[in-house]
């Protein structure tokens, strides 16, 4: 998905469901999740793939309406049509299958830049 974004990375090693696992304010609402209580708002969310309910795209749309959407989404495994719908509706730059494994070089808290057009993901600091 086209668009550029700069933001703080939030790196999840496991798939996440936007419907049911993230609340309407953008916080990860799964008890026991390694990032439970953290917000996806304005973050560059780096994660393997979406999972669960097909209400996920509506959740992205709602987060966008409330100004709580992620700055960008980097999907490292299979691309879910549902999530792409959400990214289009919410106007979120989205990147799929980045060339180098982002988990090796990017950690939560790093500042990163994403270009959804060229597919580039770089660490700024």
């Amino acid at each position, binding site marked *: 998905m086209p668009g550029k974004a700069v933001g703080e990375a939030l790196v999840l090693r496991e798939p996440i469901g936007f419907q049911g696992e993230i609340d309407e304010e953008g916080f990860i609402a799964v008890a026991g999740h390694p990032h439970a209580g953290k917000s996806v708002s304005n973050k560059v969310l780096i994660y393997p*793939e979406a999972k669960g309910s097909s209400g996920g*795209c*509506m959740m992205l749309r*709602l987060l966008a309406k409330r100004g709580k959407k992620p700055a960008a989404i980097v999907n490292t495994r299979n691309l879910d*049509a*549902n999530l792409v719908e959400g990214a*289009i509706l919410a106007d979120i730059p989205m990147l799929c299958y980045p060339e180098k494994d982002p988990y090796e070089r990017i950690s939560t808290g790093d500042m990163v830049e994403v270009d959804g057009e060229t597919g580039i993901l770089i660490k700024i600091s």
Partner: protein
Amino acid sequence: MKLTDQESRLLKGEEGEIKALAMSYLVKLGNAFDGKEMVDIAYAHMSSGSALREGEIEYLEELADKGATVVVPTSSEVIPVDLRDPESIHAPAPIVEEHRKLLDIQRRMGIASTYTCVPFTQGYVPAKGTYIASMESAAIIYFNSVLGAKTNRCGYFVLYAALTGKYPKIGYLLEQNRKGTHLVSLETKLSGSTDYGALGYHVGALVGSGVPVFEGIDQPRQEELMVLGAALATSGTVAMYHVVGVTPEARTTGEAFGGTRPQGKIVVSEKEIREVYRKLHTAKDSRVDFVFLGCPQYTVEQIRVAAGLLDGRRVHENTTLWIGTNRMAFAMAERMGYDDIIKRAGGVLVCDTCPMLSFLRLDSLAKRGISGPVFKTMLTDSPKQAKYANHTMGCEIILDKVDACIEAAVKGKWEG
């Protein structure tokens, strides 16, 4: 993406601004997947634009006021309340009112107000090989895997597909993405739909967005496949599975894989099935104040079984029992006297809604200034409900089979 002349006309607005907007979104989606063309769809199952998400019903109304109508048969998803008998579940009047309005909007747009997660039990049975656009992960997986109709994990864009009759040919509409990825050998005997759900929950977490191929499932019932699929799409992103000998595209294991090699092999024994029940069990207390059956919505046959277990008994005074279904199954349950049995026992046969999407959600309660949860401990026979209700309703959860659920509803206590 290559568009036909008719599709280009739609995109250019020659058939109105609404279709042009819808088409522009569908083209964007197609381009994101490097889609080559659009297909005509035979059916759509869309979101009802729940009142729990602000602005959605208003948006549909705007479209209806401009004269927008769907151009393919279209059914619609579960809503947050029961419109048949809202009082039976103490549904808040303003949310009920909002959805009565929705009913009228949908009628004007030509959308069937089915309020269901299982439209294929209500006359919407798209044929094998046809392209469709469906949301609701439990329905999507059934369409692909049991009926052999082809749909992606659609969401909001079903609206745009229904308004134009088009969808980009991407994802699960392409033959190569429908082939098996993992071989699952079942080495235990499953008993009842909750066990099928446990199987799905276990495998979904392992295959993620893969396409599991099940060997060793013999003569499954419709309800068992419904629960299997719902669970696969809860712990994973599974949009399609093959049951060898059952799935139209899997007459043999070889056909299911279509000449590709399995990426992995999964063996499931009794131990893995039991483990799912344990994993989803978060309740510390054995007292249950809420028993919910019907995720996916119960069929007439499941209502018959539950009513049989309840007949002549009484639900405990501290426990609420809901059995979730839809208007069509309800009509038959009423005719057969099952609704009377359930009512006499103090249970409620609920239409249109489902706890995890209802006014009982923590976010819906918060909007009305109520600090939740309403129920402390939910006992359910569905892994999908177990997983989501834990987060969205704030309930502690117990997963067990229908007979144990009814026992607990009567005793107010789970004795599993």
